[in-house]
């Protein structure tokens, strides 16, 4: 990082090589189209390089980069938005009056389920149907594990608004995905029931999930 700050292009390229796919996953979650997401990542790295002198080193480079990616992605959405979505539920913090989350899990092994193209296509559809703000919050939370406070800061809104957005995003995602599972194709039933791993859930999953996140690159390398 220090070398990149001194103007070493190879050092900056190393940073690019290390983080470009992760940045792309984030951008994809927000802008939804691969070409747009690639543009966002490119702009984000150029901006990051331009402002390298402002990086103080008290956070990781990626923590700094993902904020740039998010800002560029949100700007991209604003520039290309045709109709401004109306989100009447954003100011509501307490979702008790709304449709609650259904106490139904989606299957035994999500990792196994992701092999199925239909499930992935349905996740895509479900993400597409979320509003931009709901999707941005969901992606920041699920992909980067950001705290509510950090998300509120990143999106310049209150923590309550973030909780509301996240809740509605998850509930809408569940509705979309459960619809698929109500009438699953035979191969999907096999995937979900034969995959195993339906252990007793650990409700405090954040630490375990952090571990999983840390292992994710290795798992992806194995898949490749």
């Amino acid at each position: 990082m220090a070398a990149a700050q001194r103007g070493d292009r190879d050092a900056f390229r190393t940073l690019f090589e290390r983080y470009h796919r992760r940045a792309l996953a984030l951008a994809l979650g927000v802008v939804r189209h691969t070409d747009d997401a690639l543009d966002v990542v490119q702009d984000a790295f150029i901006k990051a390089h331009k402002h390298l002198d402002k990086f103080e080193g008290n956070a990781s480079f990626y923590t700094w980069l993902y904020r740039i990616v998010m800002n560029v992605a949100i700007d991209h959405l604003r520039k290309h938005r045709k109709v401004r979505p109306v989100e009447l539920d954003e100011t509501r913090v307490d979702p008790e009056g709304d449709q609650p989350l259904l106490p139904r899990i989606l299957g035994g092994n999500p990792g196994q389920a992701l092999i199925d193209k239909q499930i992935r296509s349905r996740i895509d559809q479900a993400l597409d149907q979320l509003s931009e703000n709901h999707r941005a919050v969901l992606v920041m939370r699920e992909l980067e594990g950001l705290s509510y406070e950090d998300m509120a800061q990143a999106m310049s809104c209150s923590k309550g608004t973030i909780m509301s957005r996240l809740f509605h995003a998850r509930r809408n995602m569940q509705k979309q995905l459960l619809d698929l599972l109500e009438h699953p194709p035979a191969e999907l039933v096999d995937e979900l029931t034969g995959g195993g791993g339906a252990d007793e859930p650990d409700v405090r999953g954040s630490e375990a999930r952090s571990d999983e996140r840390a292992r994710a690159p290795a798992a992806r390398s194995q898949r490749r």
Partner: protein
Amino acid sequence: MTPPMNRPSDLEIMELADGESDDPDLVSQIEGDPESRAKARLIQQMGELVRGHLELSADAVHDAKFAAMWRRIDGQLVPPVSGLWSRISAWFDRYRSHIITGAVSAGAVAALALVLRPGVPDPGQPGSTSTIIVRPVALRANPEIDALDTPGASSTVINLDDDDSHAAVIWVTPDDSNAEEL
């Protein structure tokens, strides 16, 4: 829909599943309630599905696209500046047009000020507070009368001089014939 007594709300379940709360009472409530447990598990599953799906989507993009992206990025990189002089140069480069516009404007104002500057103030103008300049003038010689023509009368010129001034007295005496007419 109000949750039964001792059943945590969806928001509380979400906060716990997201690691935003570690309230032990809430933990025991969720662990003791199958429906709450299922919701917490659902939140985790959904997170795994979304994360896995996006990561796989990013992985599916071919390396060649990133190589092309790097070439475009590399072509647009501006070397970071170091050292005082480099920073000043960079600052000048960045604001070059502003500086040139400012310099041209300042020059134009200076030229206008030069052209339109006020001249020597006119002491006769009302309101003028400038000092009156008294210019020295050459002193004239004392008046001298070379010839005096007084028809019908005789005249005499008497010059009176002292240290400070000079005066001349012209004494005219009419002739006798004219004196009678007068």
